[in-house]
């Protein structure tokens, strides 16, 4: 049985979709069989970030409604053999995401894939709770700013209350993915630092993704950032996060922390 992971945050625009694509691709590069599932019904974007927007025929809602088979709706990535996308519907209503339908689809995907990564919509409404419902573990994507931290705290509360795992009395495994970290601002004391965030949210750290234009460039060309520019600091941070997700122990490097005095002026590009 595969692992079901939800990528969630509460707040919008913090990098859930980017992170889903990047981590999904990083796992697939390690020959794991991966499906990334877009739960953002009505506002799908994972297809665009993955570069598969013109190949969508059937979607999650079609499968739930019985209008298409699961195999018909899955889109195989053109770059990685073991990476698949299950797109969300762009035109349908999010109320079509029924609890029974979602349970059935996730159940089938778990049998066929090593990793089922669910890209949650923003907010705490039904779409978000549906995306987290059957998860074995959660990646909480958080930016180092107050509103994102507050919303993450709220989502952590929901993960501990509204998931199947929580209802069974089991502990939901939660990982903090600190995204859009700016080493310069952290050094100047104008951005919440890693220790602050870990202390406030008190869940283990999966990785720190530095703020970078690589993400924008990757989305422009429709490739997960781990594939678009695999040597970039962002891609490496995502690859390490993916490896930690599989259980490997790799020390987390805080971007910019080991930089020398000169590095402060000359090392910006590395971030």
């Amino acid at each position, binding site marked *: 049985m595969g692992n079901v992971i939800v990528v969630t945050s509460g707040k919008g625009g913090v990098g859930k979709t980017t992170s889903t694509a990047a981590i999904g691709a990083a796992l697939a590069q390690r020959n794991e069989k991966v499906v990334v599932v877009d739960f953002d019904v009505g506002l799908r974007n994972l297809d665009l970030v993955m570069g598969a927007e013109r190949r969508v025929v059937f979607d999650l809602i079609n499968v739930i409604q019985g209008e298409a088979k699961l195999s018909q709706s899955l889109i195989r990535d053109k770059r990685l053999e073991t990476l698949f996308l299950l797109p969300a519907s762009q035109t349908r209503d999010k109320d079509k995401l029924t609890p029974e339908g979602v349970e059935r689809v996730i159940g089938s995907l778990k049998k066929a894939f090593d990793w089922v990564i669910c890209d949650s919509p923003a907010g705490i409404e039904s779409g978000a709770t549906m995306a987290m419902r059957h998860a074995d573990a959660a990646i909480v994507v958080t930016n180092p*700013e*107050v509103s994102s*931290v*507050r919303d993450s*705290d*709220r989502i952590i*509360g929901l993960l501990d209350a509204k998931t199947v795992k929580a209802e069974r009395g089991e502990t939901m495994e939660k990982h903090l993915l600190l995204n859009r970290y700016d080493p310069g601002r*952290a*050094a*100047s*004391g*104008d*951005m*919440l*630092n890693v220790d*602050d965030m870990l202390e*406030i949210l008190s869940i283990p750290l999966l990785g720190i993704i530095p703020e970078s234009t690589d993400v924008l460039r990757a989305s422009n060309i429709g490739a997960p950032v781990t594939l678009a520019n695999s040597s970039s600091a962002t891609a490496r941070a995502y690859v390490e996060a993916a490896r930690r997700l599989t259980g490997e122990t790799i020390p987390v490097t805080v971007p910019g922390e080991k930089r020398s005095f000169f590095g402060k002026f000359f090392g910006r590009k590395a971030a």
Partner: protein
Amino acid sequence: MNILRLFGRRKSASAARERLQVLLAHERASMGGTDLVEILREEIVAVLSKHVKMEGRRVHVKMERGAQVSTLAVDIEIPFDTGARAA
């Protein structure tokens, strides 16, 4: 940057951390309490409906948590005719 720190300029990140710590402590407490308030409301409605006709949401339960003491406010609205009937 370090020179500014020497002169004691308060960094905004520490303000953010302090504000979040206070805010989240309150929100966690009140989120945890939501269920309790809802349970109380349902049970109050159940007890009342044995004696008076209860329609819709006419029972409001509110809990306020303070540092020293918490207060529970229950506001029950009983329509005129049902009150007359019960009497």
